[in-house]
């Protein structure tokens, strides 16, 4: 049960454009945004953050899904991990990579660019941060500055959402919940209590 209740979508016609954009992108409106919508300035700001950090095509769709799923998974935030993995195979991130996420250093499924991404995600998810110069320098071998900035922006965007959903105890929606129950349990994902 969430610790702060979301508002019903029908009570928020003023945000319908934002919500429809989410439906077009991922197929449902996350409850997290229906809780943020309690504060008009906050939902507007998070909408601006989403425009800057989620929608641009600076990296390929599989890389976007790899970064956001891995950082959430390594952070132990099942809500966002389910969101970011659900639908990812259809967008080009193979299910085999999702299932091998914890074996990225040794699995032959990943190339060096992906390993560098996953190392950054893993180290950025630790508290305190364990990111090193070597982590960032490794990414510079594979990505230009705008791409690297965007990868970091994706991680930070998920840091925001992960923390929000972890504290609020947001209820996972039916679509990603069913998908994660079927597919994500082998990587340690568990349904919420």
């Amino acid at each position, binding site marked *: 049960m969430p610790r702060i209740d979301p508002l019903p979508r029908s009570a928020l016609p003023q945000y319908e454009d934002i919500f429809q954009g989410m439906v077009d992108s991922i197929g449902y409106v996350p409850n997290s945004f229906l*809780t943020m919508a309690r*504060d008009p300035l906050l939902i507007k700001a998070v909408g601006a953050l989403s425009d800057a*950090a989620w929608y641009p095509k600076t990296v390929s769709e599989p890389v976007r899904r790899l970064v956001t799923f891995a950082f959430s998974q390594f952070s132990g935030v099942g809500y966002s991990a389910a969101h970011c993995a659900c639908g990812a195979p259809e967008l080009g991130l193979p299910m085999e990579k999702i299932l091998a996420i914890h074996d990225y250093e040794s699995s032959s499924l990943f190339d060096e660019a992906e390993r560098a991404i996953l190392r950054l995600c893993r180290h950025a998810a630790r*508290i*305190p*941060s364990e990111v090193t110069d070597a982590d960032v320098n490794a990414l510079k071998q594979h990505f230009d500055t705008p791409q690297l900035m965007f990868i970091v922006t994706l991680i*930070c965007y998920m840091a*925001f959402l992960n923390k929000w959903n*972890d*504290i609020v105890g947001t209820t996972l929606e039916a679509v990603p919940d069913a998908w994660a129950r079927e597919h994500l349990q082998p990587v340690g994902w568990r349904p919420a209590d």
Partner: protein
Amino acid sequence: MARLAPLNRADLPHLAEVLDEIEQDHGYVPNSFLTLARDPALLDANHALAHALWYGQRIAPEVRQLVAFGFSLCNGAMYSAAHTAAPGADTPLPLEVLRGVRDAETSPVYSEQQRALLRLCRAAARFPSEVKDNHLAALRTWFDDQQLVQIVGLIAWHAFLNTWNGIWNTRLEDKPRAFAQASLAGSGWHGQAHQ
């Protein structure tokens, strides 16, 4: 050393309005905003978050500062911890409240409300998270849903900023570094990174 160079403010006349407002609040422009400025839409989004969560009076400035500082310090994010402790337009907490965060449960300096806020900050900064129902339930003694949204939003925004500055190892500016070194002894703050 920083892993992403901040831009030169003089080269950003198109962002002058945003950066001037940040300077009025802090007394300087943090390097974090000059790296965010590499993507103007990202800087604008953070400016919008500042207006939603930091400026204004929807929650008391003392609550805002305690949450932002307490979460950043517990999160090991010394760049943001120094920023949120250093004197500025919206940082009214006395030094003894900033210094004693680690002893808040027993120190007479803290009110029950401040202890409840710091309990949430500490639990949210654990890996993995230790946030439980009782953390938010306790805060309902003093805060309604609208204010809780602000408090959680502040923590989430600082998770963004902490992560940004942790990955880039953003250089802490001289003014907040000098303040933190002189004033935060014993709080757990250290200046090993962000040189």
